[in-house]
Protein backbone atom coordinates (compact mmCIF):
# COMPACT_ATOMS: atom_id res chain seq x y z
CA UNK A 1 0.00 0.00 0.00
CA UNK A 2 1.15 3.54 -0.73
CA UNK A 3 3.12 4.77 2.30
CA UNK A 4 1.69 8.28 1.75
CA UNK A 5 -1.67 6.88 2.87
CA UNK A 6 -0.29 5.04 5.90
CA UNK A 7 2.21 7.43 7.50
CA UNK A 8 -0.31 10.10 8.62
CA UNK A 9 -2.27 7.55 10.70
CA UNK A 10 0.87 6.27 12.41
CA UNK A 11 2.15 9.77 13.18
CA UNK A 12 -1.26 10.99 14.37
CA UNK A 13 -1.62 7.98 16.68
CA UNK A 14 1.70 8.63 18.41
CA UNK A 15 1.09 12.38 18.65
CA UNK A 16 -2.56 12.29 19.80
CA UNK A 17 -1.98 9.59 22.44
CA UNK A 18 0.92 11.64 23.82
CA UNK A 19 -1.00 14.93 23.69
CA UNK A 20 -4.24 13.64 25.21
CA UNK A 21 -2.96 11.11 27.76
CA UNK A 22 0.74 11.80 28.30
CA UNK A 23 1.53 8.20 27.31
CA UNK A 24 4.59 7.76 25.08
CA UNK A 25 4.76 5.15 22.32
CA UNK A 26 8.17 3.55 22.91
CA UNK A 27 8.29 1.07 20.01
CA UNK A 28 6.66 0.88 16.58
CA UNK A 29 7.01 -1.92 14.04
CA UNK A 30 7.30 -1.35 10.31
CA UNK A 31 3.94 -1.61 8.51
CA UNK A 32 3.29 -5.24 7.49
CA UNK A 33 0.71 -6.31 4.90
CA UNK A 34 -2.46 -7.57 6.58
CA UNK A 35 -3.78 -11.05 5.87
CA UNK A 36 -7.41 -9.94 5.97
CA UNK A 37 -7.76 -11.22 9.54
CA UNK A 38 -6.81 -9.42 12.74
CA UNK A 39 -6.56 -11.20 16.06
CA UNK A 40 -7.69 -8.54 18.52
CA UNK A 41 -6.05 -7.68 21.87
CA UNK A 42 -9.40 -6.94 23.47
CA UNK A 43 -10.45 -3.26 23.22
CA UNK A 44 -10.95 -2.45 19.58
CA UNK A 45 -12.24 0.66 17.86
CA UNK A 46 -13.20 0.78 14.19
CA UNK A 47 -13.81 3.91 12.14
CA UNK A 48 -14.55 4.13 8.43
CA UNK A 49 -14.13 7.06 6.06
CA UNK A 50 -14.97 7.75 2.46
CA UNK A 51 -14.24 10.36 -0.20
CA UNK A 52 -12.64 9.82 -3.58
CA UNK A 53 -11.37 6.57 -1.98
CA UNK A 54 -12.68 4.51 0.94
CA UNK A 55 -10.73 3.56 4.04
CA UNK A 56 -10.84 2.22 7.56
CA UNK A 57 -8.75 2.57 10.72
CA UNK A 58 -8.79 -0.04 13.47
CA UNK A 59 -7.01 0.70 16.73
CA UNK A 60 -6.77 -2.31 19.01
CA UNK A 61 -5.52 -1.88 22.59
CA UNK A 62 -4.53 -4.39 25.24
CA UNK A 63 -7.06 -3.88 28.07
CA UNK A 64 -4.35 -2.63 30.48
CA UNK A 65 -3.38 0.12 28.05
CA UNK A 66 -7.01 1.04 27.34
CA UNK A 67 -7.62 1.38 31.08
CA UNK A 68 -4.57 3.61 31.53
CA UNK A 69 -5.66 5.82 28.63
CA UNK A 70 -9.12 6.22 30.16
CA UNK A 71 -7.62 6.82 33.61
CA UNK A 72 -5.32 9.56 32.32
CA UNK A 73 -8.05 11.19 30.24
CA UNK A 74 -10.90 11.14 32.71
CA UNK A 75 -9.04 11.16 36.02
CA UNK A 76 -10.86 7.98 37.11
CA UNK A 77 -8.85 5.85 39.53
CA UNK A 78 -10.46 2.50 38.67
CA UNK A 79 -12.46 3.00 35.48
CA UNK A 80 -14.93 0.23 34.61
CA UNK A 81 -13.83 -0.77 31.11
CA UNK A 82 -17.25 -1.82 29.88
CA UNK A 83 -18.94 1.41 30.97
CA UNK A 84 -20.47 3.41 28.06
CA UNK A 85 -18.51 6.56 28.88
CA UNK A 86 -15.23 4.66 29.18
CA UNK A 87 -15.68 2.83 25.88
CA UNK A 88 -16.71 6.15 24.36
CA UNK A 89 -13.24 7.48 25.28
CA UNK A 90 -11.59 4.83 23.12
CA UNK A 91 -13.98 5.57 20.25
CA UNK A 92 -13.33 9.31 20.51
CA UNK A 93 -9.56 8.86 20.51
CA UNK A 94 -9.89 6.85 17.30
CA UNK A 95 -12.15 9.59 15.90
CA UNK A 96 -9.60 12.30 16.72
CA UNK A 97 -6.66 10.29 15.33
CA UNK A 98 -8.50 9.47 12.09
CA UNK A 99 -9.73 13.08 11.83
CA UNK A 100 -6.19 14.42 12.24
CA UNK A 101 -4.73 12.08 9.59
CA UNK A 102 -7.64 12.61 7.18
CA UNK A 103 -7.27 16.38 7.51
CA UNK A 104 -3.68 16.09 6.33
CA UNK A 105 -4.55 13.72 3.47
CA UNK A 106 -7.45 15.92 2.36
CA UNK A 107 -5.34 19.06 2.33
CA UNK A 108 -2.40 17.37 0.53
CA UNK A 109 -4.20 15.13 -1.95
CA UNK A 110 -7.79 16.44 -2.11
CA UNK A 111 -9.32 13.10 -1.10
CA UNK A 112 -12.43 14.64 0.47
CA UNK A 113 -12.44 11.98 3.21
CA UNK A 114 -15.30 12.20 5.70
CA UNK A 115 -15.59 10.19 8.91
CA UNK A 116 -18.45 7.95 9.97
CA UNK A 117 -19.14 7.67 13.73
CA UNK A 118 -16.70 5.15 15.30
CA UNK A 119 -17.62 1.93 17.11
CA UNK A 120 -15.86 -0.01 19.88
CA UNK A 121 -15.95 -3.72 20.67
CA UNK A 122 -14.46 -5.49 23.66
CA UNK A 123 -13.80 -9.12 24.48
CA UNK A 124 -11.01 -11.67 24.49
CA UNK A 125 -9.98 -13.82 21.52
CA UNK A 126 -11.88 -11.77 18.94
CA UNK A 127 -11.00 -12.17 15.29
CA UNK A 128 -11.74 -9.29 12.90
CA UNK A 129 -11.95 -10.34 9.28
CA UNK A 130 -12.13 -8.26 6.11
CA UNK A 131 -10.67 -9.82 3.01
CA UNK A 132 -12.04 -7.31 0.50
CA UNK A 133 -9.66 -4.43 1.18
CA UNK A 134 -5.89 -4.13 1.20
CA UNK A 135 -4.58 -3.40 4.69
CA UNK A 136 -1.38 -3.00 6.70
CA UNK A 137 -0.79 -3.57 10.41
CA UNK A 138 1.59 -1.68 12.70
CA UNK A 139 2.38 -2.92 16.22
CA UNK A 140 3.04 -0.37 18.94
CA UNK A 141 4.30 -0.58 22.52
CA UNK A 142 3.93 1.73 25.52
CA UNK A 143 4.90 1.40 29.17
CA UNK A 144 1.32 0.28 29.91
CA UNK A 145 0.73 -2.25 27.15
CA UNK A 146 0.66 -2.85 23.42
CA UNK A 147 -1.62 -1.78 20.59
CA UNK A 148 -2.12 -2.44 16.90
CA UNK A 149 -3.14 -0.14 14.09
CA UNK A 150 -4.75 -1.67 11.03
CA UNK A 151 -5.09 0.75 8.13
CA UNK A 152 -7.05 -0.25 5.03
CA UNK A 153 -7.87 1.52 1.77
CA UNK A 154 -9.89 0.64 -1.29
CA UNK A 155 -8.26 2.57 -4.12
CA UNK A 156 -5.09 4.63 -4.04
CA UNK A 157 -3.50 8.01 -4.71
CA UNK A 158 -2.82 9.22 -8.22
CA UNK A 159 0.96 8.91 -8.67
Amino acid sequence: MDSRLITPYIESTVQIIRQMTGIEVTELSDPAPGSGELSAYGVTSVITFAGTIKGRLIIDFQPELALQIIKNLMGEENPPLRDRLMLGCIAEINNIIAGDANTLLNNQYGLGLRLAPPMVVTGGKMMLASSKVESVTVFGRTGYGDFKLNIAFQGGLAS
Partner: protein
Amino acid sequence: MKRILIVDDSPMIHNLLRKTLERNGYEVCGDAANGREGVELYEKHRPDLVFMDITMPVMDGIEAVKTIKGKYPEAKIIMLTAMGDDEIMSEALNAGVEVFLKKPFDDYKIISAIAKVI
Protein backbone atom coordinates in the same frame (compact mmCIF):
# COMPACT_ATOMS: atom_id res chain seq x y z
CA MET B 1 -22.31 33.82 34.40
CA LYS B 2 -22.22 33.02 30.65
CA ARG B 3 -24.25 29.95 29.67
CA ILE B 4 -22.91 27.44 27.16
CA LEU B 5 -24.55 24.53 25.29
CA ILE B 6 -22.44 21.51 24.24
CA VAL B 7 -23.49 19.52 21.16
CA ASP B 8 -21.38 16.40 20.54
CA ASP B 9 -22.09 12.67 20.25
CA SER B 10 -19.08 11.76 22.39
CA PRO B 11 -19.77 11.47 26.15
CA MET B 12 -16.02 11.95 26.71
CA ILE B 13 -16.05 15.35 25.01
CA HIS B 14 -19.07 16.42 27.10
CA ASN B 15 -17.25 15.37 30.24
CA LEU B 16 -13.89 17.02 29.42
CA LEU B 17 -15.37 20.18 27.94
CA ARG B 18 -17.78 20.63 30.86
CA LYS B 19 -14.84 20.38 33.31
CA THR B 20 -12.83 22.91 31.29
CA LEU B 21 -15.72 25.36 31.08
CA GLU B 22 -16.80 25.08 34.71
CA ARG B 23 -13.30 25.52 36.09
CA ASN B 24 -13.04 28.71 34.04
CA GLY B 25 -16.28 30.19 35.36
CA TYR B 26 -18.81 29.24 32.68
CA GLU B 27 -22.11 27.43 33.17
CA VAL B 28 -23.00 24.47 30.94
CA CYS B 29 -26.76 24.86 30.44
CA GLY B 30 -27.32 21.81 28.24
CA ASP B 31 -25.82 18.66 26.70
CA ALA B 32 -27.03 17.49 23.29
CA ALA B 33 -25.89 14.27 21.58
CA ASN B 34 -26.78 15.26 18.00
CA GLY B 35 -27.64 18.26 15.87
CA ARG B 36 -31.40 17.94 16.23
CA GLU B 37 -31.16 17.84 20.02
CA GLY B 38 -28.79 20.80 19.77
CA VAL B 39 -31.36 22.87 17.88
CA GLU B 40 -34.08 21.94 20.41
CA LEU B 41 -31.90 22.80 23.39
CA TYR B 42 -30.78 26.06 21.77
CA GLU B 43 -34.42 27.12 21.44
CA LYS B 44 -35.15 26.06 25.01
CA HIS B 45 -32.14 27.66 26.74
CA ARG B 46 -31.01 30.42 24.31
CA PRO B 47 -27.40 30.06 25.53
CA ASP B 48 -24.70 32.72 25.13
CA LEU B 49 -22.55 30.27 23.14
CA VAL B 50 -22.69 26.81 21.55
CA PHE B 51 -19.85 24.29 21.09
CA MET B 52 -20.84 22.15 18.09
CA ASP B 53 -19.30 18.94 16.68
CA ILE B 54 -19.74 18.08 12.98
CA THR B 55 -19.98 14.28 12.62
CA MET B 56 -23.04 13.21 14.61
CA PRO B 57 -25.99 10.89 14.00
CA VAL B 58 -29.53 12.14 13.23
CA MET B 59 -28.45 15.67 12.20
CA ASP B 60 -24.84 16.74 11.63
CA GLY B 61 -23.30 19.91 13.02
CA ILE B 62 -23.26 21.89 9.77
CA GLU B 63 -27.01 21.35 9.31
CA ALA B 64 -27.63 22.26 12.96
CA VAL B 65 -25.61 25.49 12.61
CA LYS B 66 -27.61 26.46 9.49
CA THR B 67 -30.89 25.75 11.31
CA ILE B 68 -29.93 27.72 14.42
CA LYS B 69 -28.44 30.64 12.48
CA GLY B 70 -31.46 30.70 10.15
CA LYS B 71 -33.79 31.36 13.09
CA TYR B 72 -31.39 33.17 15.41
CA PRO B 73 -28.74 35.08 13.41
CA GLU B 74 -27.34 36.47 16.66
CA ALA B 75 -26.41 32.94 17.89
CA LYS B 76 -22.71 32.45 18.68
CA ILE B 77 -21.30 29.06 17.68
CA ILE B 78 -17.82 27.53 17.94
CA MET B 79 -17.23 24.41 15.84
CA LEU B 80 -15.14 21.82 17.70
CA THR B 81 -14.45 18.80 15.56
CA ALA B 82 -11.96 16.05 14.68
CA MET B 83 -11.74 17.04 11.00
CA GLY B 84 -10.15 20.35 10.05
CA ASP B 85 -9.36 20.33 6.33
CA ASP B 86 -9.78 23.44 4.22
CA GLU B 87 -13.04 22.29 2.61
CA ILE B 88 -14.85 21.40 5.83
CA MET B 89 -13.57 24.53 7.56
CA SER B 90 -14.87 26.66 4.73
CA GLU B 91 -18.23 24.85 4.83
CA ALA B 92 -18.52 25.53 8.57
CA LEU B 93 -17.55 29.19 8.27
CA ASN B 94 -20.02 29.64 5.39
CA ALA B 95 -22.73 28.09 7.59
CA GLY B 96 -22.05 30.90 10.04
CA VAL B 97 -19.80 29.61 12.83
CA GLU B 98 -17.73 32.25 14.59
CA VAL B 99 -14.64 30.10 15.29
CA PHE B 100 -13.45 26.73 14.01
CA LEU B 101 -11.41 24.54 16.39
CA LYS B 102 -9.87 21.13 15.78
CA LYS B 103 -9.77 18.46 18.50
CA PRO B 104 -7.97 17.69 20.74
CA PHE B 105 -8.27 20.76 22.94
CA ASP B 106 -6.88 22.20 26.14
CA ASP B 107 -8.02 25.00 28.45
CA TYR B 108 -6.03 27.65 26.58
CA LYS B 109 -7.49 26.74 23.18
CA ILE B 110 -11.06 26.77 24.53
CA ILE B 111 -10.82 29.91 26.63
CA SER B 112 -9.02 31.87 23.87
CA ALA B 113 -11.75 30.92 21.40
CA ILE B 114 -14.52 31.95 23.80
CA ALA B 115 -12.82 35.31 24.37
CA LYS B 116 -13.02 36.01 20.63
CA VAL B 117 -16.77 35.37 20.53
CA ILE B 118 -18.45 36.58 23.75
